[in-house]
């Protein structure tokens, strides 16, 4: 999305940090090279809560419901197992940290970031994946509210308050969904719990 590639990305980071759509979401970085894992964590820590793991067993133990995005090097021995648990998850997206020279990547990954990592590409990918999760979260709340509104009688004083919350949610959905392409929107909307 951003055409100006800022290697250490001060301005891009500041912009992304300002986005409410993905603020405070939890990203897990799994790479058997601790230096790489730490570098990626540093690059993301200004907009996200970042956790790192460097071994296969650790990865499986770290998969919990807080996570919005998992970035993982597919050479980690527990990748298959992790993908079995994460693929098509409603609340989490998983991207491959693709090693140089490895082009074939399991199609269950939702995204990929090439190594050596470009920080702008990394942040753009994480932002999109977080937005997919946020969009669906907002969509679920939108449905719940719409259903609540439909259950109230015409004159119920609560209607106005719920209508206001629906307006706010519509704005949130627009803000979150705007940068996503339609394939990402449908995928997020239609994943099954």
């Amino acid at each position: 999305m951003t055409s100006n590639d800022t290697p250490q990305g001060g301005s891009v980071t500041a912009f992304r940090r300002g986005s409410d759509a993905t603020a405070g979401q939890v990203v897990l970085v799994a790479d058997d090279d601790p230096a790489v894992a730490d570098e990626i964590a540093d690059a993301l820590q200004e907009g996200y809560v970042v956790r790192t793991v460097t071994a296969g067993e650790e990865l499986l133990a770290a998969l919990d419901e807080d996570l919005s995005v998992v970035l993982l090097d597919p050479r980690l021995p527990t990748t298959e197992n992790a993908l079995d648990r994460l693929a098509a998850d409603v609340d989490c997206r998983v991207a491959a940290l693709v090693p140089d020279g490895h082009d074939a990547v399991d199609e269950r990954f939702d995204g990929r970031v090439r190594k050596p990592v470009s920080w702008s590409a990394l942040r753009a990918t994480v932002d999109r994946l977080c937005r997919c999760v946020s969009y669906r979260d907002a969509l679920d709340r939108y449905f719940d509210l719409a259903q609540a509104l439909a259950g109230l009688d015409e004159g119920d004083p609560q209607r106005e308050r719920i209508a206001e919350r629906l307006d706010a949610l519509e704005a949130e959905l627009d803000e979150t969904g705007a940068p996503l392409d339609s394939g990402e929107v449908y995928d997020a909307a239609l994943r099954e719990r």
Partner: protein
Amino acid sequence: MSAKSNSDGDETGQPTNVLLLTSAVDGCEAAACRELSETTHPSRSHVILATGLQSPRERLADWEDDVGVRPAETTVVDLATATRSAAASTASTGETPTGPTGPDGVDRWADATVERVAEGDLLGLGETLDAALTGSDRPTTLCVRSVSDLLQSADVETVFRFLEALTRGVDRAGGVAHYHLNTDVHDAETVETLAVLFDAVVGLNDREGADV
């Protein structure tokens, strides 16, 4: 005309996504559908007809009866349903255009594109509709008939999420769309829940006409 805003409706107040409530006792469905299909004259438009219970052939015949004007470009997106295949097993097989033939025996809809999507495959339906919505330079009008058919193969929550994505896609593509919903077969709560997604609701007993 070409650039619609990305929010509800466009600058002229023309609603982008309209829910059309229908009922067997009402009898206005054809007229309302016609009016909503003519916001841009069909002879200049790409018209997308999404059909569930009706076969593409029946759907095109209805368009001919109700609207009459040939669109500049026509796409039928066919979400085959189990109910239909039981009812009319011979009507819609193969990829050949399935329009009514005129008195001279010429297939009048030979240039219509027919896309098929498996029953219940809402992801495939969304992708197919999106390709149709973004695939033409002409003003695009989408008629979904019907949301009731979608509700046969998916629960209301799934259909709600699907329609949020679809209405968003119509906005983005700068098109206009209307969605038939047969109120005879759904409870009021289902209808009102879905209504939230649209810029306007028309039909039935002058039910609230706008801005839900």
